[in-house]
């Protein structure tokens, strides 16, 4: 049962607005899934169901076999961490160190263990040099890494990232890429909402496309980006290099420069 499962899950807001309609989705530990789609497609609602912030109005959500309806969000959070898009909605401690140490301490872990974890995650996210600083002295995008570190310090089995690349520069994206690789090694499941198609194409094998409250396709990243119909419905575009490949007739399934060159050579080879 090492998985999060949405089983025919629908969600309706108290004002009657239906945001998710009959979702079926399984995310296993150690797996990486990118959820893509236009704003309003229901991506955020779907991930909020995964950690119990929203309880389905129809259907069930099971986290490692436990129904989210029977637990508080905070209880589920120990297994499914969720990093919100805006770090400033989360950070409140005086130093970066205290911010990351907050949850391990909340769970009454031994001082030594807390210290070890803080240093581990800070190193992973390349924010060691900021540990003693006030979080508001460091750039906004770096604060995002602080909130990711703060969640990882609790050692969840799954982590949800909402638009991690928004506003990040190349260096930031490289850090995120490495974080994803490390998390896979230690069997942490990752669910990412993203608008950044290059990021999705380069880092995720599995992509879930959403449109109009529903999952319209859940499958291999290549299948999704080569399906014009899915792209149109979910209002996303294939990665830039894929667009170039498609335009010159190299095929719709190219995701990056390396693949482009390989195909180009094959096609133009005498």
């Amino acid at each position, binding site marked *: 049962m090492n998985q999060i499962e949405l089983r025919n899950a629908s969600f309706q807001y108290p004002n009657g607005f239906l945001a998710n309609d009959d979702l079926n989705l399984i995310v296993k530990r150690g797996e990486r899934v990118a959820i893509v789609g236009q*704003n309003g497609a229901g991506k955020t609602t779907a991930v909020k169901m995964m950690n119990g912030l929203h309880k389905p109005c129809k259907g069930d959500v099971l986290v490692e076999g436990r129904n989210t309806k029977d637990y508080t969000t905070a209880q589920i959070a120990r297994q499914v961490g969720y990093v919100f898009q805006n770090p400033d909605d989360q950070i409140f401690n005086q130093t970066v160190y205290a911010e990351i140490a907050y949850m391990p301490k909340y769970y009454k872990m031994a001082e030594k263990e807390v210290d070890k974890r803080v240093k581990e995650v800070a190193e992973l996210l390349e924010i060691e040099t900021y540990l003693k600083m006030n979080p508001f002295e460091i750039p906004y995008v770096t604060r995002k890494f602080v909130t990711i570190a703060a969640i990882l310090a609790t050692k969840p089995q799954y982590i949800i990232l909402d638009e991690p690349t928004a*506003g990040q520069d*190349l260096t930031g994206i490289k850090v995120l890429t490495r974080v994803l690789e490390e998390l896979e090694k230690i069997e942490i499941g990752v669910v990412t909402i993203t608008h950044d198609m290059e990021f999705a194409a380069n880092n995720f094998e599995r992509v879930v496309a959403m449109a109009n409250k529903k999952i319209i396709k859940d499958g291999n990243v290549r299948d999704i980006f080569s399906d014009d119909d899915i792209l149109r419905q979910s209002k996303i575009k294939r990665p830039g290099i894929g667009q*170039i490949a498609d335009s010159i007739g190299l095929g719709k399934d190219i995701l990056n*420069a390396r693949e482009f060159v390989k195909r*180009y*050579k094959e096609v*133009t080879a005498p």
Partner: protein
Amino acid sequence: MAYIELNEVTYTYPLMKEPALQNISCSLELGKFYGVIGENAGGKTTFCNLLRGLIPHFYNGKLLGDMTINGEDIRKIDVDILSTKMGYIFQNPFTQISGVRKTVFEEIALGLENLGVPKAQMIEKVIEVAKLLKIEELLLNDPNRLSGGQRQRVAFASIIAMDSDIFVIDEPTSQLDPEGTERIFEIIHMLKEQGKTIILVEHKVDLIAEYADEVLVFQKGRLLKKGDARTVLSDLELLEHGTMLPQAVILERELRLNGIVLPKVPVTTEECIDLLRKGDVGYESN
């Protein structure tokens, strides 16, 4: 003719030890589109604050060097007048809506009320801008109930209605989805067509490549590069400074490393497709 001129400008925010900008010298001309890129915390937003006169008039701190806007010393300039000449739009779609008007129509009119525009003219202007930006269907909506993308378009409309000649735009799309981003870029494109001066900070370099005349690259508070968009954006060295380059440039590099040579380095996707279609491609064995 240079309109904005900076000479050895160094600026440090209050309570900060390190300067946010160091020894910046450059000049900006009217009617050009400047793309501003570079790693995070490299000084891009501070540069915008300087152009808008927010430094030194809103933020204190230490300002060294000389800067003039239209020949006037930035330290002596009347910011109230400056704000009527220079439109400013930034990241957060939520803080840019005044929150004190009941409809989008009235929200857009707010800036015109402040400028003392007569009522009939005001109404005409709001309608004109709404048509131009294709937000007519939003006019009677409550500005506080719009999505981020819609708010950002209303923010643009509110500034454009005020008829500024210069637009300083700081990461307008970082909180928007691809569709919202595209619509903002349509607006920016339109401003360029109208011959407005635009200074745009944006991470999405592919979009910069499409529109900018010149590109400025900031890194660690310094102006690393400034030059025409093609030269700067095809400079592979930037990748080592945490700055992304256009997809077309990345592709060209990969092709070249594999012995496939294009007649020139394309900086936009369109240009790249064009070159490849023409088949004007050389091969090098390596």
